Every structure is written in C-alpha cells, then in structure tokens.
C-alpha cells in the first residue's frame, strides 16, 4: 500500500506520516504542493492520495480534479485533510469525486475510520 501525502506544511505531513505508520502503513511519500504531487502520481503507482486543500501552487481541489480527469489516475482513492469547512467547499469536493473529507484539527481515530471506510469500499468493488 503506497500512499502520497500532500500538504504545504511539513509539520502536517510529518504528523500524518506518523499516524499512518502507527496504523501499519509504512510506505509513504510526500509532496508539498499539487504541482509537485501530480508528476509523482503519474509515475508512481500510488494506492491512495491524502491531500490538503489550501496550497500555493495548485490547490488540493484542482489536484483532485486533475486526478479524476487523468485516465491512468481516475480511480485513485483521494482523502482530503483540510482546514476548509465551508459548506460549498465540502460539496464541491464531494462532487469532484473525493472519497473522504477530514477537517483539521482531527483525531487519529477519525483518520483511521476514514481510511478504513475507503479501503472497505475498494475491497467491496
């Protein structure tokens, strides 16, 4: 299980990386923006994308849209972890095909639940 963590704050990436490791996911990579994440995804064989929304170069919502528009990446599960909690934004992300939406600050338990939900859905086909 290879996971890409995208957030412009290195401390947040570090926190998520540690939480994932705790849940048994050791194979993680990081990117600090949508622009650097996209090429990594295209060449990388990732099984899950975890991304923030608010990033300077390319925002998470646009990264999500690019992923869904790319034939090779369209089915990639995407979990958003973000401080943005306006109704319109949550709806926009859902309509763009996000698989889970976690708002900051979040608990380890929440992250675990959302990940389990995503992987259940994958196994259920």
């Amino acid at each position, binding site marked *: 299980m290879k996971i890409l963590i995208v957030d412009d704050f*290195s*401390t947040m990436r*570090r*926190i998520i990386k*540690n939480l994932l490791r*705790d849940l048994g996911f050791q194979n993680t990579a990081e990117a600090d923006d949508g622009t650097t994440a996209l090429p990594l995804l295209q060449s990388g064989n990732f099984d899950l994308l975890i991304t923030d*929304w*608010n990033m300077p170069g390319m*925002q998470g919502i646009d990264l999500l849209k690019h992923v869904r528009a790319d034939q090779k990446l369209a089915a990639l599960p995407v979990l958003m972890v973000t*401080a*943005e*909690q*306006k*109704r*319109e934004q*949550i*709806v926009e992300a*859902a309509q763009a095909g996000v698989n889970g*939406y*976690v*708002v*900051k600050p*979040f608990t380890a338990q*929440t992250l675990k639940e959302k990940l389990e939900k995503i992987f259940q859905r994958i196994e259920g086909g």
Partner: protein
Amino acid sequence: MADSKFISDENIARARDLVATMERGDETGAKDVIDDLTNIRESDLYQEMGKLTRELHDAITAFGMDEQINKLAEMEIPNARQRLRHVIEMTDQAANRTLEAVENSLPICEAMGSRSRELHTEWNRFTKRDMNLTEFVHLAKRLDGFFATNTGDADKLRDSLNNVLMAQDFQDLTSQIIKKVITLVEEVESNLVALVKLTSGKNTKTNAAQQQSSEILAGPVVPGVNDKGVVSGQDEVDDLLSSLGF
C-alpha cells in the same frame, strides 16, 4: 457668509436697476446688470472654493507630515511582517522539536511493549510449571536484561517528554509578539479611519463591520471572523456528506 454678503444694499440697487432696464426694454443694459451680478457671484464662489482647497491642502499636508504615519509605513509595518514571520519560524521549530521527541519515543514504547508481551508469555509458562530448569535459567537472564533495558528506556522516555515540555515555550513568546502586532494593526486602523473621515467628511461606520470575511478560501475557522456558512467539526462534515448521498 457669501450669501449674506450677496444680499447687500449694492446688490439690491443692482436688482432694482435690472427691473428698470427691463421695463424700459433696454436689453443691453439689462444684460450688463446681469453680468455684474454674475461676476460678483462667481468671485464669491471662487473665494469660497479657494478657502476650501487651502484647508484640504493643509490637512493633507499635515496628515502626510505626521511623523506617526511615516513611522508606521517605513518602520512599524515592515517590523510587523518580520515579527509574524518569526512567529511562523518559532511555531515551526516547536512543532518539529515535539514531533522529533514523539518519533524517538514511539519505537521505544513499541519495543518495550513487545518484549514485555514475549516475556510475559514465557513467565506464564513458568508459573504454570511448564518450564524446565535450563529454560528457566535462560528466562531469568532475559528478565535481567529486560529490567536493565526498561530502566534505560524509562529514562529516555522521560527525556523525550521533557523535550516536549520545553518545546511549548514558544507559546508565551509568540503570544507577546502577536499582541504587539495587534496593537500595530489598531494603530493603522485608527489612522485609516481618520484618513477616510478627512476625505469624505462623513461618519464612516459602514456595514463593513457587520459583513463576514468573504475571501474565497477562508482557512482555519476563527470564531466571529469566518464562521458563517461553515460546518463545525468532523461530525457535521459527515452529516452534510451523507445527507447529499455521498
């Protein structure tokens, strides 16, 4: 005032003149009187405008030469930027120090836990008399090692926790810095209000204060600033999504 000067004996005489010239059909004469009156009126207006222009110019000059404003623009605001950057740096450092302590501690806890589980299993065998002497000697040695390691590990964990404790020292300092920047913002605010009053001459409390921040990306929720139209907490996010069928 110009108006009361305008209603003078001279001008009343001119007005009578105007009526007289018109009654006797003297078009040129009438136009002359009207010209006179108009000139007087215009010069009054010019004087009034000149006075206002001078007053405005003086006020703007005074405002621009106000040392406080210059100081704000040239020193305090760049300072404030610098201070806030420093806050970012400090909080970044504190977070990283803490995360490092956590990353150091977790493996220690995991190893401690798994060793303890292993030895516990062996110890249970012993208490159930399911162990021979050789095995017990071996277990005793391992227990010995375990106690020694544990003591060392406890010390390491305590050190890590102390590092976490000390890493929180940023909060006091960053708060002080941020308070200073708030004071600066208030200063800028009052100067701006004064400037707006100067140029509009009216009381300037608009609806802006009631409007919420309408940036496209609101960022983390700050109560009272951008908490309209947002959900509060993961549960509400989940409710919203499931109510839409996601």
